[in-house]
């Protein structure tokens, strides 16, 4: 009998871990933001700022904060890093439900609809009205929904292909300008050395596949009046699935996640030669392969049809103000200063990001090229050209996370086990539509 009781206690104990992580997590989170200051009228305010771009241990980030605090006596900015977009979203929703929120939150553009539809962030159209001219319209659009502004753009991702110049030359291939050339280059490289791939195929790059489908003319989410349209299984989108299916089936790309020790080792040893992403990629590659600096260059993303340079943005984030922030006005003022003002957006450039504000973008032109490619002096000019060609607006739905996990898992499975990529896109479409309908949205 004694043994039996011990066993049952253990069952409870282990179960408690599960339940505690599910339920008590919210309370623990609420405790974190307890240090926030009083309301606006109280004079001194402390703004709690959830961000992964401005790390409190980074002296360059601290300098930016010092500038603002010196100009605005009585305002104290408290930086805290709570994770990336997925983690920040769930923590913000938990904090909102616990009525104890931060004042400014950094979130990638694709995460905005989820927190807006949960009612967790504030419509700041009025608060940032004075800053409208400091940021280009196609960038404001990234942080706006239905004509209302919900965030101040921090940085943007003009889409670029970053590749090894020395090894492309060694294998006798030019930087591709179309996806057909990209596939041909992949074949040429792989034929000479089967252990080398032009790139890795990482199914977790959900946003990249969405952007590439948009480049082909598909709209994964769009609104029509009060209802949603989902186009993940549209023909244009499925053709991009076929494209990758072909490369994966022929073994021309290595199927593996990005930025693992394995991927890093292959980038360092010249087994993976490029990464199709955005202007922020060079600093990421530099952080894992600093020894290869000088052997890289970035060019505009390959196109589906030669001569059609239209692309969308990839990645980048904005500053949002939680609905329940007690210092919302002071917080919006700070967010507008950091993201949109001349001073703020120029300072953001010191953090190796591509600022969304006009002044920051202007400043990039006189900036040194990224450390990964000191010889490519026209890097920022190329990036600026790409921004002018960034004419495809992407609409994100309120359930991007649902789509991205369903898509990533299924695409990985398909890539590893030789299943149809088209089926993955079609299954994701079904999952997204079912989830929207379950939440009570109208879907066309």
């Amino acid at each position, binding site marked *: 009998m004694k043994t039996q009781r011990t066993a049952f206690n253990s069952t409870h104990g282990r179960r408690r871990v*599960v339940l505690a992580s*599910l339920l008590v997590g919210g309370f623990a989170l609420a405790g974190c933001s307890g240090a926030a200051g009083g309301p606006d009228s109280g004079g001194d305010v402390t703004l709690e700022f959830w961000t992964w771009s401005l790390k409190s241990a980074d002296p360059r980030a601290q300098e930016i904060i010092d500038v603002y605090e010196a100009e605005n006596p009585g305002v104290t900015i408290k930086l805290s890093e709570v994770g990336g977009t997925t983690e920040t979203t769930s923590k913000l929703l938990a904090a909102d439900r616990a009525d104890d929120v931060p004042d400014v939150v950094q979130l990638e553009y694709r995460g905005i609809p989820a927190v807006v539809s*949960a009612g967790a962030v504030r419509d700041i159209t009025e608060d940032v009205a004075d800053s409208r001219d400091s940021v280009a319209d196609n960038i404001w659009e990234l942080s706006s929904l239905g004509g209302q502004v919900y965030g101040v753009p921090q940085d943007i991702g003009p889409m670029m292909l970053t590749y090894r110049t020395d090894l492309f030359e060694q294998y006798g291939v030019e930087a591709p300008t179309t996806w057909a050339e990209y596939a041909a280059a992949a074949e040429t490289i792989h034929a000479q050395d089967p252990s080398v791939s032009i790139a890795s195929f990482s199914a977790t790059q959900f946003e990249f596949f969405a952007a590439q489908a948009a480049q082909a003319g598909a709209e994964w989410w769009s609104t029509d009046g*009060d209802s949603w349209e989902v186009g993940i299984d549209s023909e244009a989108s499925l053709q991009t699935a076929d494209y990758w299916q072909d490369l994966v089936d022929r073994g021309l790309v290595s199927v593996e996640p990005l930025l693992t*020790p394995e991927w890093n080792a292959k980038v360092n040893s010249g087994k993976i030669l490029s990464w199709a992403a955005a202007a922020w990629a060079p600093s990421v590659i530099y952080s894992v392969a600093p020894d290869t600096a000088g052997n890289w260059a970035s060019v505009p993303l390959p196109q589906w049809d030669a001569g059609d340079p239209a692309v969308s943005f990839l990645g980048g984030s904005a500053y949002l103000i939680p609905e329940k922030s007690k210092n919302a006005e002071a917080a919006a003022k700070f967010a507008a200063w950091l993201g949109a003002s001349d001073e703020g957006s120029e300072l953001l450039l010191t953090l190796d990001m591509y600022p969304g504000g006009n002044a920051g973008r202007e400043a990039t032109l006189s900036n040194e090229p990224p450390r990964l490619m000191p010889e490519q002096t026209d890097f920022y000019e190329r990036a600026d050209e790409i921004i002018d060609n960034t004419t495809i607006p992407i609409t994100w739905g309120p359930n991007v996370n649902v789509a991205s996990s369903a898509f*990533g898992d299924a695409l990985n499975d398909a890539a590893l086990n030789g299943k149809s990529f088209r089926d993955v896109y079609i299954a994701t479409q079904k999952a997204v539509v079912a989830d929207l309908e379950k939440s009570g949205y109208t879907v066309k």
Partner: protein
Amino acid sequence: MTTITPRRRRLNLRGALTPWLFAFPAIVLFTAFLVIPIAYSIFLSFRGYQVEGGGAYGRRVEGFVGIDNYVGAITNPELLAGFGRVLIYGAIAIPTVLGLALLFALLLDAPKARLTGFSRTAIFVPYAVPGVIASLLWGFMYLPSTSPMSYIAREFGGSSFDFFGYPALYFSLANIALWSGVGFNMIIIYTSLRAIPSEIYEAARIDGASEMKIALRIKIPLVLPAIVLTGLFSVIGTLQLYSEPATLRPLASTISSTWVPLMAIYQEAFTNDNLGGAAAASVLLAGGTLVLSVVILRFFQRRTFGDAE
């Protein structure tokens, strides 16, 4: 009589209160950290978010959704597939862990064993390495570019091992759990072995039994309750497998984000913002674990514990 009755009643009252007084701290903690969270979890499992007011960006508001979450959990193919994977993993890990734990315990208990103190500690030490750390360490040893095993294989003209492929992945994961599991279960079985009175062995030796016979015919039957207990722990632990696959996931494309039930529950709660669905799946998992534990114990009760119901 009349003078005694009230006195006795007072005494009875005090007598009745005393155990509650002693149990009070435990009851408070039990209620605060077990009863309330479980009750709240059951409450949550009937709640969900629904759009109010319509529109493409309509606000999602929490409300009562009946048994939708349970229907969703039961019909979720990923959750069911996760149980299937856990089953395969358990079929590999549990017999291996328990077999090795029993073997080591018997070896340490053998009269000719030397260096028992050192060996016991050495076998137990991996249990002190947290699962996440062990998974990271093994993760690096499994990745072809950083794996010493694959390096040696390549040096001898072979090719890298595919530790994350199928079905190797199950063995790779079981291997991580093996190191800590063997140490922990070995200690339980060994402790149980040491509690067997030595007169029994003496009697057996006088009767001419070999050490092997003693191990098989005396020791194992006598430590069967301990083996059943460790088996039960292992079954529960297997159902709640989480940290090893979750830690390895960023390294291996073969591990999906819903690879085991707990990962699916985590994803439901924190990626898909569906706390209700996650709570429903948790309640089902907890209920299933409880039923399974009772069944296992009932099955072995008469045979091993000698309880006459």
